[in-house]
């Protein structure tokens, strides 16, 4: 999607499973020069504290590279987890992909 990298994630983001994949993927995108990254978590049915830590790590890595990371299509469980951990104040969570793309465009 132009200069926006959209990553469709599925399954679990938990200790030793999806969390390492997420970390590698985001670092690679940054390495390739991407600065606008949208994580589609619509098919992520489970995330634990390690997964949340990886999301925060990804957010920080993208910000450090002067980029933006946004989240879209959170499942109820992921949404609730991000809510109770107060990470809604950190992450830019978009309602759908079109809104996310627009928000990247309007910010640039």
């Amino acid at each position, binding site marked *: 999607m132009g200069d926006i990298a959209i990553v469709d994630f599925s399954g679990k983001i*938990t200790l030793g499973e999806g969390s390492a994949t997420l970390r590698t993927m985001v670092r690679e995108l940054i390495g390739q020069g991407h600065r606008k990254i949208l994580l589609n978590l619509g098919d992520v049915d489970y995330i634990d*504290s390690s997964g949340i830590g990886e999301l*925060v790590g990804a957010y920080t890595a993208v910000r450090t590279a002067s980029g933006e990371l946004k989240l879209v299509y959170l499942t109820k469980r992921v949404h609730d987890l991000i809510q109770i951990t107060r990470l809604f104040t950190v992450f830019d969570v978009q309602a759908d992909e079109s809104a996310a793309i627009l928000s990247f465009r309007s910010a640039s």
Partner: protein
Amino acid sequence: MAAPTQRLEVTLDTQLESVDLAESIVIRVAEAAGFGEDDLHKLGMAVREGVINAYNYGNCQDRRKKIRLAVEFEAETMIVHVVDEGCGFQLCDVEDPLAEENLLRTSGRGIFLMRAFMDDLAVRRAPTGGADLVMYKKLPHRVSGNGRSQAE
């Protein structure tokens, strides 16, 4: 006379696989006890976080050490113990992950999630010196044939 306490105890190796194993054991036991889907998720997640804590911080990923998982039932409560062989810790020493200065930390949310998903959480010192994480969840109430609700 008080009903006898039912107890299940499993000794787990300090390895990543134990996290999923502990979660699935507790979910299976809780399912048999009548917990619904939402509570099963919360119980599983809390135990998962407890075992991650034992694996990472208590036993420092030392494969020579063990993690003890125990599930007990009292009259109205399911109690889960996760015991490690570390140095122990106190809840008051755990930083608040919701504090502004901690929001961007990549770790330190496990204890908070255990508290959020269970009815109560305590940390005791195990006889071995490690931490004994004790999690409490009130048993679900079912409606009996006479229409009165009861704890299973």
